[in-house]
């Protein structure tokens, strides 16, 4: 580490850095502004904050020592995987340690007979399926960021993907974890068995947003690759109708492997970006994938085509071959970056709603878009009712970020109003803390804080994320009352 950088640090930080140097080699401690810049934000780039110190350990013992040291010095720690999170979960703290787990990339064990893989936390999601492929197996949850995001981050966020409708979220596909608590204690949960004695701590750790423990190893369930997968693309003249068709498919007792929707703005962007072959004049498209035994897929594809055509699709096209199927998916999977080219900035929302409210909610989001004069692209997990409205804005235009945030808050309000939730898979992070005050009553938030306390009594692991303080909620409520209107009048609960 360059000497000049250390010189600029505060005395406290200086002491920390020298202590960290006793645990890690010099190149694994970054304390200068330049070196630590790449870590100042995650995928939610609207929030940035340079970390106090960045640590890049490469073994469990080092992580344990770092945690012990930080617990002793009372320094907060923020774990980071690939930094693709979309809610600011890995946003660093100026007075804290950013613990990068990027070097934990070993696949420790692949057990084809038990259909499990034991991997280090920094292994990329897709790397697991790649390693399992020679055995005809794969890891099912497939976030669109799967080329880069880590399994540790997936567990921390309980990430989903386009195939979660049939195969479940991360929580349904994780069998074991090895983690360190903030005081450096090693805990092993589960393994190669289908259940574990005692409380379901795996359920708590999945989606814990780095607040309960630092995950070192993950044992995931692998599935046999389906014999065949086939994709139908259905085009609609009307977004609400596409929403209705989703209900028709599920209502007919068919659970597709994936059922995704893109509206015109999103599909045009994706088409321009990847040349997927989407019908650019459609108001919305549905991508419906069926997988399973060859015969079963043939049978279901016909039924799904009929259902789509009977429910308002003006065209239902079955991928001619594997190349076309993958191309159609590639368009969907690159939709975020594709939409990202339409405007200088975009803001991705993540509410989930009951599926039968899709037509209504999509119509109302379109209305809000006109009201706020901000374009919105919809590309989302329709089968799960998990919306991803992408609000387009330009942060350099005065007031636009604020407008976008207000628009976003309105969308989340709408999700809650129809019986949904503020986040389906991206997590609360720092972004949705205020909305947590609306979704939960103070006693519920207090219970969350206590769960955190049971794992981390000093509150040093990713503090200030995921669960708002009751004080913040009171201020949030008060602030809005002060301005003469409650943020979510019908829903305010305290």
């Amino acid at each position: 580490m360059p000497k000049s950088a250390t010189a600029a640090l505060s005395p406290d930080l200086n002491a920390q850095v020298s202590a960290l140097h006793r645990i890690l080699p010099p190149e694994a401690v970054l304390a200068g502004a330049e070196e630590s810049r790449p870590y100042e934000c995650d995928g939610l780039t609207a929030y940035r904050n340079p970390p106090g110190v960045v640590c890049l350990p490469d073994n469990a013992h080092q992580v344990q020592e770092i945690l012990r040291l930080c617990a002793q010095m009372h320094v907060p720690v923020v774990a980071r995987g690939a930094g693709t999170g979309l809610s600011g979960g890995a946003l660093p703290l100026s007075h804290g340690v950013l613990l990068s787990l990027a070097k934990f990339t070993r696949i420790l064990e692949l057990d084809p007979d038990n259909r499990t893989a034991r991997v280090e936390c920094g292994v990329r999601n897709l790397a697991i399926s790649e390693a399992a492929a020679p055995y005809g197996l794969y890891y099912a949850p497939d976030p669109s960021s799967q080329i880069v995001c880590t399994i540790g981050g997936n567990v921390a966020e309980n990430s989903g993907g386009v195939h979660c409708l049939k195969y479940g979220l991360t929580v349904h596909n994780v069998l074991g974890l090895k983690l360190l608590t903030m005081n450096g204690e090693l805990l092993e949960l589960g393994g190669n068995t289908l259940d574990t004695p005692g409380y379901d701590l795996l359920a708590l750790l999945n989606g814990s947003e780095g607040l309960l423990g630092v995950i070192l190893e993950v044992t995931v369930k692998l599935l046999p690759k389906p014999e065949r997968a086939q994709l139908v693309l259905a085009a609609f003249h009307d977004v609400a109708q596409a929403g209705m068709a989703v209900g028709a498919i599920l209502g007919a007792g068919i659970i597709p492997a994936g059922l995704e929707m893109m509206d015109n703005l999103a599909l045009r962007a994706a088409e321009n970006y990847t040349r997927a072959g989407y019908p650019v004049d459609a108001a919305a498209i549905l991508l419906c994938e069926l997988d399973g035994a060859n015969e079963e897929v043939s049978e279901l594809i016909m039924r799904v085509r009929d259902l789509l055509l009977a429910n308002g699709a003006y065209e239902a096209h079955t991928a001619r071959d594997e190349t076309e199927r993958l191309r159609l998916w590639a368009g969907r999977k690159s939709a975020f970056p594709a939409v990202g080219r339409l405007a200088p900035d975009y803001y991705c929302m993540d509410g989930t709603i009951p599926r039968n409210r899709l037509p209504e909610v999509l119509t109302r989001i379109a209305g809000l878009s006109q009201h706020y004069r901000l374009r919105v692209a919809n590309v989302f997990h329709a089968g799960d009712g998990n919306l991803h409205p992408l609000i387009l804005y330009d942060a350099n235009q005065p007031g636009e970020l604020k407008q976008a945030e207000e628009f976003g808050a309105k969308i989340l309000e709408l999700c809650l109003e129809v019986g949904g939730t503020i986040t389906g898979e991206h997590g609360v992070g720092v972004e949705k803390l205020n909305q947590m005050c609306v979704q939960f009553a103070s006693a519920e938030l207090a219970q969350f804080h206590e769960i955190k306390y049971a794992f981390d009594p000093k509150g040093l692991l990713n503090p200030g994320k995921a669960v708002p303080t009751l004080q913040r909620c009171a201020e949030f409520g008060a602030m809005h009352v002060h301005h003469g209107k409650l943020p979510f009048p019908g829903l305010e609960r305290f």
Partner: protein
Amino acid sequence: MDADHSAALLASVQEALAQKIPLRIAGGNSKAFYGRQPAGKPLSMADHRGILRYEPGELVITARAGTPLSEIEAALDAHRQMLPFEPPHFGPGATLGGTIACGLSGPRRPYAGAARDFVLGVKIINGRGEVLKFGGEVMKNVAGFDAARLMTGALGTLGILLEISLKVAPKPHHEVTLTRSCSAQQALETMTALARQPLPLSAACFSNDTLYLRLSGSESGVRAAREKIGGDLFSDQTSFWRQVREHTHDFFKSGTLLWRLSLPPAAPLLSLPGLWFIDWGGAQRWLRNPLPADVIRATAVKLGGHAMLFRGGEHTGSVFHPLPPALLALHKRLKNVFDPQGIFNPGRLYAEL
């Protein structure tokens, strides 16, 4: 019959807190045998019942905890839907609350998921007498820690379940069971080999020198798999799988202790003497055997698994597999933050909780 007794239940909790008398929570008492013998004053959940919301198109059902499991299943059945984890009732009175509190799953578990996998949300009373809601009625929800799933299998030690929302699934269009005579070793090898292939398996067990394989799905998919796997078509499948699920199968009738071993599915046959019933494609193995607990547990641990005394014996000692000290300490801290005065089912799961 349907009634909201939450006010009365809350009052009972307040009273228990004031008088410092713990509560022994019971639904239909069908699983009173399961776990350790809890202390406390009985609190019946049976009157707090009724299906609150069920929209088949949404694949979600929400009901009060005291709702009979049979009522839930009948409602789902009328729309050709089911609880995919195929929960055992273990008696006519089984309630939804008891089912989730015990967290037990039937033969479909390895292929469809466990009870906890289908819990979307709960409403509970915690040990401070607060009514709290966690999760919801939508498919994906990562707002807040997953306290809803945490309740599954906690045997009521963290709170009283008032309402539960579950994800449900369409019933398979077609189901067949194939049998084949073979040794336990051959059965295990077959189960392992089949599980590595993309087949519509929905149950696999071995007992009495017979391997039973159930296939579920579309008619064409099941037919194709059947041709691939071979074996004899088993006509009495519905009652057979019910007997396996409900432990009314002959194997479960004899009097000796019944151990449940949870193992990596491909773990080799265990050298322990006694009668074996292999379920869940090898992942759940039942053992009838009077050996000391330590021996059974040590054997399971050696293979990466764990063992619990399911039926028989005293049920006052350690019934569930003992936790290592660090984990037990964490369990105690969690128990303490949900139920600081220890009024819910003390000792039912572990003596310390």
